[in-house]
């Protein structure tokens, strides 16, 4: 635990330094596209003064100065499958974003969707002895959590304290300064495959960049696609990506569960490609232009040229009705949604007070998806689009950029994680010396 703690702390310090310097890049390594935004942090005072603008849900204080998207290569199911290809794709996106921003970026915060995320709810309790709770007590209670055996080859990606309880008062966001006997904490821990992280870190390093943070794509998509009251009251964000469909459940503004189904938009494209006997690029084009999940009578007469380049006139002049296309797509979309349903059921989503479901990600743009999702997932379904952040180009405001925009919010206003609190004092090996060093560092 400690070594990972150290590396996460190092990344956090790096992120802090990057924000201090003013420029940081966020990188969304997806299965179908790699998006890169360059953020400039210039203080939020400028916007605070403006009339009628509040804190803007935390997205004030930075500005997007560079944005670039490129087709992803070498990524399958949200994990890096071919390092060189992925590295080139990252390079392409970063170079274009840097060019647009006209500034060199040294620090990057990355997110990815795959690597089999697994959620753990862990709890810890400690006796603080009827004094006001201070930061050290929080550190103690965090370190008292019994970490489950999540297996070798896995790493903790997020570990966020979700809820604090002091004696019999639960639901405390911040127990500091309150008096109580027993302090207990509920934490949500998300682990992923270590190899995926290492591959991504290696790719970023090969691009001469410093990795200043890692996030789960489902989590950050939820940050940007869910509105504040949904995060507060309880909602699930379904990020329908290319290779995976991420599920994240939010309650009291904290993520309490995250999972991902290894099925996504690319499978739909695959089905179309197989079913219509067209190349993948054509299938993708047909899907985005004519795709849908609810067939109507009109769709029988709506004929689509599917083309081809074989030289066979008959083959190249084929036409299918839109109803046929929908017939190919719908089972796969249903399968995706059922997979999501299964994961939500496993997480106990039905016990939440409010069961709002927000669909986002590129896959959510299929026409008629909300109707289909209502049948499978429940009545409260809406299609979510990411928040609008300052300076984001129009091309990057679509649902497919939910996790990219969420990364901006994650970079600007990260939630407390385990490693944001100091280790409890009694675990310091050479306590006084380290404290002296820390005192020096803090004061100079």
């Amino acid at each position: 635990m400690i070594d990972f703690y150290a590396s996460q702390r190092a990344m956090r310090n790096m992120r802090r330094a990057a924000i201090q310097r003013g420029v940081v890049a966020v990188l969304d390594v997806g299965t179908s596209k790699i998006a890169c935004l360059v953020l400039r942090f210039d203080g939020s005072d400028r916007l605070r003064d403006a009339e009628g603008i509040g804190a803007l849900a935390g997205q004030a204080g930075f500005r997007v100065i560079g944005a670039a998207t490129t087709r992803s290569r070498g990524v399958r199911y949200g994990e890096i499958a071919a390092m060189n290809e992925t590295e080139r794709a990252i390079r392409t996106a970063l170079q274009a974003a840097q060019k647009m921003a006209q500034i060199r970026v040294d620090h990057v915060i990355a997110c990815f969707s795959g690597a089999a995320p697994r959620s753990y709810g862990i709890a810890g309790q400690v006796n603080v002895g009827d004094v006001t709770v201070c930061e050290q007590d929080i550190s103690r209670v965090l370190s008292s959590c019994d970490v489950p055996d999540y297996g070798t080859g896995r790493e903790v990606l997020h570990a966020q304290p979700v809820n604090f309880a002091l004696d019999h008062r639960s639901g405390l966001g911040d127990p500091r300064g309150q008096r109580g006997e027993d302090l207990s904490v509920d934490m949500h821990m998300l682990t992923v495959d270590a190899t995926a992280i290492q591959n991504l870190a290696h790719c970023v390093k090969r691009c001469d960049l410093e990795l200043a943070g890692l996030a789960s794509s489902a989590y950050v998509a939820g940050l940007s696609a869910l509105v504040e009251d949904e995060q507060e009251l309880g909602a699930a964000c379904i990020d329908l990506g290319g290779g995976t469909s991420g599920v994240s459940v939010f309650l009291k503004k904290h993520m309490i569960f995250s999972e991902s189904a290894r099925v996504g938009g690319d499978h739909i494209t695959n089905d179309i490609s197989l079913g219509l006997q067209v190349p993948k690029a054509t299938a993708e084009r047909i899907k985005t232009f004519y795709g849908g999940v609810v067939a109507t009578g009109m769709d029988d007469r709506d004929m689509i040229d599917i083309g081809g380049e074989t030289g066979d006139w008959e083959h190249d002049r084929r036409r299918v009705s839109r109803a046929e296309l929908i017939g190919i797509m719908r089972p796969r979309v249903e399968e995706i949604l059922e997979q999501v349903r299964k994961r939500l059921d496993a997480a106990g989503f039905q016990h939440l007070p409010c069961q709002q479901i927000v669909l986002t990600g590129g896959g959510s743009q299929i026409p008629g998806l909300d109707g289909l999702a209502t049948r499978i997932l429940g009545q409260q379904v809406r299609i979510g689009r990411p928040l609008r952040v300052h300076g984001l180009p129009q091309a990057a405001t679509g649902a497919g950029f939910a996790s990219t925009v969420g990364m901006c919010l994650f970079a600007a206003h990260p939630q407390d994680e385990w490693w944001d609190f100091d280790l409890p004092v009694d675990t310091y090996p050479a306590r006084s010396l380290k404290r002296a060093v820390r005192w020096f560092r803090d004061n100079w």
Partner: protein
Amino acid sequence: MRSLKSSTRTDPAPSRWSYRVQRWWLTPALHKILRIGLPILLVVCAVAGVIGNADRRADIAASIQDLRRQIETRPEFMVNLLAVEGASAVVETEIRELFPNDLPASSFDIDLKAIRDLIIDLAPVAEASVRLRQGGVLVVNVKERVPVAIWRTRGGLALIDGDGVALTLIGQRKDRPDLPVIAGHGADRSVAEAISLLQAAGPIAERVRGLIRVGERRWDVVLDRGQRILLPEHKPVRALERVIVLAELQDLLGRDLSIVDTRLTTRPTIRLSQHAMSELWRIKQTSTDQKTGVAE
């Protein structure tokens, strides 16, 4: 698996090196250097290259000098005429001889202050102002010194003004009979006192021959018939006025005495002439003889 080495499709991704070069190019410090440092460097190099050659430097200096000359000698800046105002003919000639520039000259070459100093250094000039008037005329306004006395020295007779400045030598006393004569060491340094004494001596003016400065501290009034009035160092005018009152009331100066000594203000003294003294003795003797004779 297709060959890893050769791919006919063009790769949209930048190569590692182009990526690195672009990143290097976007470094803010480099940008700053290129935007500010490089132009400055170029300008400095160009200037240094031109300046480095001594001949070229001389050429540049010469051309600048030439240009300056051209501007200076424009008709607007030329001085054509020297006008002297308020000076006598002699002084004017002297000023014209003294004037250092050849007219017409550029007004940039004329140092008005130096010219004024030159003119003021002339003995007969009390004040001078030099200015340029429109139309290229240099006007010298001169106020001459007025001689108030003749100063007799071993070297001869000189006219002297109120400030004690010797103006010109004159041949003989008769050339300026209107002016009084002063003499003695340091007489020129207290001309003003001498003038006030002479004014006070108005009632006996026709008898006054002149004033002599004695020991550089006090005055003697020299009258005709070899008479002298010795004045004190302090308040000499008052002492002279008392002598004049005495002279008017008791005809003091009409008598046969050689010196009226007022150096001690509380005890004025007179000295009889030799002849008067002997006469006095004789008269005294005679009267004594007569008395004794009567008694006998």
